[in-house]
């Protein structure tokens, strides 16, 4: 009897521990919607209604820019109805804060969301369509492939802010020269990449930085999978794995060669998204998203001066194909937004109307991010300063046009590719064996989770 009591006590204690462990700490930030109408300073008869926006904290300049935009919008004489309340939330606290707010019914009217989560947000009923709140001309101006990223069942669930290719090769022109390499001829094939990296490797500098095992490999190799195999890990109808063909075998073996030839650090020097080790001179070449340019401009301007960018090398050297996926950020409308009209008004003002205002953002970003709107792209290209920017030219002309959307399938499937690479590189399995195992695991996952029925 006592033992039973103790067991019950143990269970209750365990429950307390589990829930205390699962309940994350609340992030800082105090701005909450007030729902209070504020009198317009210009005309007492007109009231402004709050719109709460949650923005994300990226680079310092980014936050300053959007802070200023919010203030300009509130002060704009043409804005007579909306009082924007903008809160900046750190990325690592975002999920906990957002889910808590959604559970409590206090989510913001509008927030910044990445492309990958827009469709899932729409499918789960977390978002509402923006079609009725953003004028048609803004939708017509979007690039066709970007329209697909934000559409679900014939409706637009997000308005894009920017696009960023996830795979760009950054390299040090000065170190190329020191190693006897021509900085104007970056590696185009996988063999050249390894050969160049070998020549660039010294006691203190690694030849190449690639995404490390784990989640980074999970998403930052989508472009490599596409360029090698021409497709991703799942069939179009999401019914079976497609990872055992020669393209995937070649990709996995190439990745293994990078380690075998010791041209990459055995362990990544930073997160894939960070340019820090490259900026500090520990890497001669680094794979990163286009946002790396902005980081260099902000934190390592002297390194940016000797940096060039190139398309990720391919197996045969041909670069008129997909070498990268493209991600980026959008503004979405919460399904329970209290003021959807006001949110739509701000989104249109910020992203869908004046080309100059939109182009300014990309200028401030050092052209490390790219516009999703045709007219804004034309406006930027007409700017002599932008047209002289060599990096922008290469990324916007040779990478973005071929870039594919990020896959929407479950994260476990991408992690199976990471597992295959780990099995080959760390556990000594052959590429064929590892990919066969990945295929089995993915197909089991598909069966267990009825994956085809969940395709948005």
């Amino acid at each position: 009897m006592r033992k039973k009591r103790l067991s019950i006590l143990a269970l209750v204690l365990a429950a307390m521990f589990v829930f205390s462990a699962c309940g994350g700490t609340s992030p800082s930030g105090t701005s909450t919607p007030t729902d209070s109408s504020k009198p317009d300073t210009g005309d007492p008869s007109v009231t402004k209604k709050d719109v709460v926006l949650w923005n994300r904290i990226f680079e310092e300049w980014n936050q300053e820019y959007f802070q200023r935009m919010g203030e300009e919008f509130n002060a704009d004489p043409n804005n007579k109805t909306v009082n924007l309340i903008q809160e900046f939330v750190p990325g690592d606290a975002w999920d906990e804060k957002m889910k808590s707010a959604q559970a409590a019914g206090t989510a913001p009217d509008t927030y910044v969301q990445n492309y990958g989560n827009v469709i899932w947000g729409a499918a789960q009923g977390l978002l509402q369509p923006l079609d009725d709140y953003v004028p048609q001309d803004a939708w017509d101006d979007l690039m066709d492939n970007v329209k697909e990223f934000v559409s679900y069942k014939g409706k637009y669930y997000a308005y894009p802010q920017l696009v960023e290719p996830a795979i760009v090769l950054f390299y040090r022109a000065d170190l190329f020269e020191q190693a006897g390499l021509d900085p104007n001829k970056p590696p185009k094939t996988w063999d050249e990449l390894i050969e160049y990296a070998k020549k660039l490797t010294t006691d203190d500098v690694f030849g190449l930085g690639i995404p490390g095992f784990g989640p980074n490999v999970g998403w930052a190799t989508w472009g490599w999978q596409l360029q090698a195999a021409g497709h991703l890990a799942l069939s179009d109808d999401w019914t079976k794995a497609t990872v055992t063909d020669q393209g995937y075998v070649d990709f996995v073996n190439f990745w293994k060669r990078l380690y075998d030839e010791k041209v990459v650090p055995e362990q990544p020097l930073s997160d894939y998204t960070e340019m820090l080790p490259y900026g500090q001179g520990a890497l001669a070449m680094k794979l990163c998203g286009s946002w790396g340019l902005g980081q260099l401009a902000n934190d390592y301007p002297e390194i940016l001066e000797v940096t060039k960018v190139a398309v990720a090398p391919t197996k045969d050297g041909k670069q008129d194909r997909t070498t990268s996926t493209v991600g980026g950020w959008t503004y979405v409308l919460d399904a329970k937004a209290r003021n959807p009209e006001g949110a739509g008004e701000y989104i249109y003002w910020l992203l869908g109307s004046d080309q100059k205002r939109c182009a300014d953002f990309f200028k401030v970003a050092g052209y490390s991010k790219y516009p999703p709107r045709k007219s804004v792209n034309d406006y930027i290209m007409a700017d002599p300063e932008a047209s002289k920017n060599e990096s922008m030219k290469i990324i916007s002309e040779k990478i973005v046009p071929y870039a594919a959307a990020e896959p929407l399938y479950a994260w476990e499937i991408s992690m199976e590719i990471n597992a295959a690479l780990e099995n080959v590189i760390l556990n000594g399995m052959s590429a064929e064996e590892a990919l066969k195992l990945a295929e089995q695991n993915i197909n089991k996952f598909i069966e267990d989770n009825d994956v085809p029925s969940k395709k948005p």
Partner: protein
Amino acid sequence: MGSKGAKKTTRNRLPTSKADHITAYLMILPAFAILAVFVLYPLYMAVTKSFTNWSFYGETQFVGFENYRQVIRNAYFQKSLVNSLKFVLILVPSQIFLAFLFAHAVKKLTGGFGTFVKVSIYVPTVIAGVVASVIFIFILDYRAGLVNQMLKVFGLPRMAYANNPLLATIAVCLVVIWLGFGYNTLVFYAGLLNIPKEYYEAAQVDGANAFEQLIKITLPSLKNIFVLVSINLVTGSLQLYDIPYMLTGGGPAQTTQTPMIYLLNNFRDMSKNMGLTLSGAILMMIIIGLCSSVVFRIISSEKSMDA
């Protein structure tokens, strides 16, 4: 016999009048209210929602045991459970052994030096797991960490702990042991101080050697301490989250991924409903409860029952 009689007498002395009952209930009411609001109600909500496809906004549908089935069959969850067991088997005995051993040593230390040692070993306890992880990341950093710089001085290759399953496991265990060492040692130390000296004096008179004194006096007298420390360590090891998350991200090859990391990843994944995450949390609650109960049974102590 005498003690049983004493227990009965004690029980008979418990308040039985209505007024006493009301007073007693009133006194436990605040604690029960807090428990109900912060534990029982969330637990009830979690259990009920775990049987649905709840995602905050959409229409919630009852899905039976589907979420539980998906979690149990998920290869990552299975592997994370195996990892947890591995951590329990490594961390619980090693921490108990080290703390018990060191508590003996500390007991013999007196004066200012003794106080200094006690304070020093307790210092890591007040450091958060995240901070401790950052300290060890600096020490183990592949490019500029202390360990790799020393290896470089001796002409040895760098150590890539995050890409080596064994080294990654050792790194995680090292931080956990370092953090918990002070607390566990002081608990054992307090237990040792509680054992009457007369027991040892009598044993010495009877000719018992040090080992016999350990087996016959020290260990039985510390049964309650072993129960407390074991439960804490088993529960803590099963709930391990911040240290592997910071140090290795659960890798390489998911060898340090724990159920809590798996649950957090599920929670953050927008393609998954909250019911799925909750079902994983409920399963973990049951597993931890069962493990704690097993520990109670293994180290069943009459003294602990009476306490």
